[in-house]
């Protein structure tokens, strides 16, 4: 048993296992999206599911994002529990009406008579030389829409557990996966389990500053914390896991202990979630702060193609270390 609990999976295999668990557990669940069936997903995240569950439940669609998301909205409102795949998060531009004006608002507009248990799986982030239209981190678009929930798994364990939690939620939930994390390995239980939506995870404890982050920047922040520790600076690292709703309590509790905070995300800094988090901290814990809340994010630019430009663009452990040192005056 102890051995089984230590089983490791990659992030992409954890997505497959999460999706498979959902199809086994929920008769009304199906997966629809571009290349999710015959191709097993362009990232391999649905491999084997068509063969196991058949074309009624693993549905290859035309390249029609608005149609696909609308199918999810209509199917969810009429009693199914769709898993809708938007291959790259950047493609939300093609279906934003169905996301923003239909999926997010239908329940409220109808006075609570509709239920929209739809899970959207999409892939975010740069680092693979896919340039400006296949590399973005657009989660702030979604978090600004009342009616949606948004989660961002950083590990294989969270990818499976948050996906299952999303599928059991009676609201629309976006699970924003990260394409640079697909080969990462981590412990994943074989059993079905949920990572609760709305609860952050303190992944490293420390007393000197709090790094608040999510998705791929969790591992960069942990590397940064290791580097800082060599100088005797102990950083607490919070993996938000859930961006909407956001676990503000855990953030404030940590800041009350460390008195310094840096928010880290891969998304463009201006208008990103970091601004919201910094604002919440100053509203709720101004007196606890020994320094202004600082932010690490991408510069105000589209994601570039060339590797040297892309690596310059992306936040990383070195940038987090530099910002943290500046914050504590070290």
């Amino acid at each position, binding site marked *: 048993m102890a051995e089984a609990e230590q089983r490791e999976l990659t992030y992409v295999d954890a997505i497959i296992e999460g999706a498979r668990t959902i199809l086994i557990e929920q008769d009304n669940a199906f997966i629809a999206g571009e290349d999710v069936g015959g191709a097993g997903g362009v990232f391999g995240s649905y491999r084997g599911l068509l063969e196991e569950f058949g074309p009624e439940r693993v549905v290859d669609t035309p390249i*029609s994002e*608005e*149609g696909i998301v*609308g199918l999810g909205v*209509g199917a969810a*409102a009429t009693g199914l529990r*769709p898993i809708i795949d938007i291959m790259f998060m950047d493609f939300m531009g093609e279906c934003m009406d169905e996301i923003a004006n*239909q999926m997010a608002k239908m329940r409220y507009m109808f*006075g609570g008579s509709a239920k929209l248990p739809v899970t959207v799986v999409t892939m975010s982030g740069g680092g693979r030389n896919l340039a400006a239209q296949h590399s973005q981190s657009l989660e702030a678009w979604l978090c600004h829409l009342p009616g949606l929930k948004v989660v961002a798994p950083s590990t294989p364990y969270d990818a499976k557990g948050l996906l299952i939690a999303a599928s059991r939620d009676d*609201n629309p939930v976006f699970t924003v996966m990260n394409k640079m994390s697909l080969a990462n390995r981590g412990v994943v239980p074989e059993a079905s389990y949920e990572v609760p939506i709305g609860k952050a995870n303190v992944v490293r404890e420390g007393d000197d500053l709090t790094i608040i982050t999510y998705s791929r920047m969790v591992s960069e922040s942990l590397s940064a914390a290791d580097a800082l520790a060599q100088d005797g600076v102990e950083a607490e690292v919070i993996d938000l896991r859930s961006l909407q709703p956001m676990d503000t309590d855990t953030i404030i509790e940590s800041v009350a202990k460390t008195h310094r905070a840096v928010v880290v995300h891969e998304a463009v800094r201006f208008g990103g979630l970091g601004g919201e988090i910094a604002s919440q901290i100053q509203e709720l814990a101004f007196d606890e702060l020994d320094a202004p809340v600082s932010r690490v994010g991408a510069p105000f630019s589209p994601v570039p193609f060339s590797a040297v430009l892309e690596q310059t663009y992306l936040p990383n452990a070195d940038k987090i270390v530099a910002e943290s040192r500046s914050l504590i005056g070290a």
Partner: protein
Amino acid sequence: MSTPSDDVLLDIHRRMVRIRTFETEAGRMAEAGKIPGALHLYVGEEAVAAGVMVHLSNEDWITSTHRGHGHLIAKGGEFDRMFAELFGRATGYCRGKGGSMHISNMDLGMLGANGIVGAGPPIAVGAAFSTKYRNTDRVAVTFFGDGASNEGSFHEAANMAALYKLPVVFVCENNGYGEYTPQAKHQAIVDVADRASGYGMPGVVVDGMDAMAVYEAADAAIERARAGDGPTLLECKTYRFFDHVGVRGMGLTYRTDEELAEWQKRDPIHMFEARLAELDVLSKDSAQAIHEEVLAEVRAGIEFAEASPTPDPDTLLDDVYA
């Protein structure tokens, strides 16, 4: 092709009268300043909603448009709760959260009026996917206008419905105008139904002022969908007697009074009543009695709405999430 029984003919007639009377009185209430916001009225297009909806049950789904009251009434919507919604009252179908443009009733299979032109067809495809997934013979009907037939959402939905052979009927209410722009200035075709062949489904054009013609064409399309043979695009040529928004019909700059007068000669309710009189199904006096009965019901609905409480401000954040 089934010939409608007298009961069905009378049912279609009553649905049309209910729509006309509700919309006319709703327009009066709006002009009196009692209904806030924007009101897109269905007067003139009644034959379409009535001729289609008489084939559906509460287990069949529809998606509607910003001009959605007629669809809900024809699907069985009750005047008291509809007026309450238009007045923004807590007793409305959407508890005052939706208003005219989002009026809905899930129990009646009505997936909402919709403020976004062209948003309905993909949702109807999802509802049809749902009924097929569950192996039922229920169908989804999506109403949209000539204007919406230029939205990408319509084309994506049409393609997917035909590809998956889903039980959807695409009902285009071609009233000749996309908001204020005449059809000839927003698309290079005359019949929206021509677009059906591009997706591998039949396209049918009917006189949308003739309830009998709509009834027959809808019967065929809906039966085809129920039988598992896939979608149909049914285009109903109709006309908006009022303005795009609000009541005024005459004296508009973007269309002529003569054009309106020509269409009004073919008022769908007058034509249908003449037909029913010919068939000895409904006398002039009986028709008049139905109009009066429905008007009394409409007035009772308005009274109910006016007597209803406004929403408690504490309900503001209710139902953002389940």
